[in-house]
């Protein structure tokens, strides 16, 4: 049985851990709120770009632009979004396991652009070729942050290095549910032109292909930005839940140790009393 001093120390240590996990829980909660707001604020732009793209695509076909069209079998690039920091519950593990499956199932050449340190480290360990690495864009990702990434990906595709580019990131479904997902980024798959009036009723200035030329880089950047924001929201909510569980566990542990501490204390008092009593009798 552990000594009183050991138990006292353990109770104190667990209490300190609890302070930290609780602080992390609250920090994650406030960052989650910020990330959720950012995701929501980015939505109107995403929807507007999507709709214009659908309108343009309705009057153009794949031959008109290299970024439209259908993917051929060839070299493939995956852009993987993870976090820079750990202690985020199953967030990074799930995303990495998901991408690992996609990588092993793929036949042929493949490379990955890693956004976030955790993903890069895992890929490096698995000896997957890493095309480029970006930091996780911090707590307040801005649109300007993803522009270099968007340029890199678009240039890689245009130069013919890759036939298909996918995104893998953790979709934020709710505070409790985050789901890793794979989405095709390039070639662009425009959504059906069902909203509003059909594309062929618009006047295009200067021309549909000129509009498309300007639109696609922004579409790519916006998709990447959306993925960054969703991934951020997933990370923080996963961390928040993990830290809440850790705090609860710390409470349980403290209760257990306190109970044991009292038991040990009681036994030792009883023993001492018996010793005193026997000592007195012996006299």
């Amino acid at each position: 049985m552990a000594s009183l001093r050991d138990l006292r120390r353990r109770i104190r240590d667990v209490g300190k851990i609890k302070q930290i996990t609780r602080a992390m829980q609250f920090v994650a909660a406030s960052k989650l709120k910020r990330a959720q707001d950012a995701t929501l604020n980015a939505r109107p732009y995403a929807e507007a770009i999507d709709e214009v793209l659908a309108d343009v695509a309705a009057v153009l076909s794949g031959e008109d632009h290299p970024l439209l069209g259908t993917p051929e079998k060839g070299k493939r690039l995956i852009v993987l979004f993870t976090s820079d920091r750990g202690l985020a519950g199953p967030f990074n593990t799930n995303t990495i396991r998901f991408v690992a499956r996609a990588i092993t199932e793929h036949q042929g050449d493949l490379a990955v652009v890693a956004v976030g340190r955790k993903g890069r480290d895992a890929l490096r360990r698995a000896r997957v070729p890493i095309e480029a690495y970006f930091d996780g864009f911090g707590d307040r990702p801005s649109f300007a942050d993803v522009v270099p990434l968007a340029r890199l990906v678009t240039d890689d595709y245009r130069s013919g290095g890759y036939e298909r580019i996918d995104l893998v990131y953790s979709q934020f479904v709710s505070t409790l549910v985050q789901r890793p997902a794979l989405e095709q980024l390039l070639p662009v798959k425009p959504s059906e032109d069902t909203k509003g009036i059909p594309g062929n009723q618009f006047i295009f200035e200067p021309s549909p292909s000129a509009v498309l030329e300007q639109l696609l880089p922004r579409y790519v950047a916006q998709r990447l930005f959306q993925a960054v924001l969703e991934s951020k929201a997933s990370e923080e909510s996963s961390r928040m839940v993990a830290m809440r569980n850790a705090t609860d566990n710390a409470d349980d542990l403290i209760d257990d140790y306190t109970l044991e501490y009292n038991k040990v204390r009681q036994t030792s008092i009883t023993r001492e009393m018996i010793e005193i009593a026997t000592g007195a009798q012996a006299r």
Partner: protein
Amino acid sequence: MPLKLEIVTPERMAYRDEVDAVTLPGSEGELGVLPHHAPLITTLGAGELRVRKGDTVELFAVIGGFLQVRPDRVIVMAETADLASDIDLERAQAARREAERALESGYHEGADLSAARAALQVALLRIRVAERRHREGPRRRG
């Protein structure tokens, strides 16, 4: 019938209101949109966007984007859209000085100047829009 105008950027909805008219920097020249405009999709350059509502005019500095005129509303998608009164003139001037310095020093080294040039353009536009507002104040029309 008023015009339903939305100005959206990747980071937020910058403006949403029912207005009377809007003037924008189209890539082919300045462009005015009134109610009942024909459906149009066009690219925008960098410049001033003026929104007229009743007898007030609001001024935005918009950079890079698109205009979609639909029968039910008008949507401006811009990379950035700053309301003239929100522009921090001092910061814009600092950005301008920095970009000019970068251009100056980079010119001799043959470095990639496109970023500095773009930054300078943005700073100059913001300064112009902010100063115009300063001179004219929130404009009134009879």
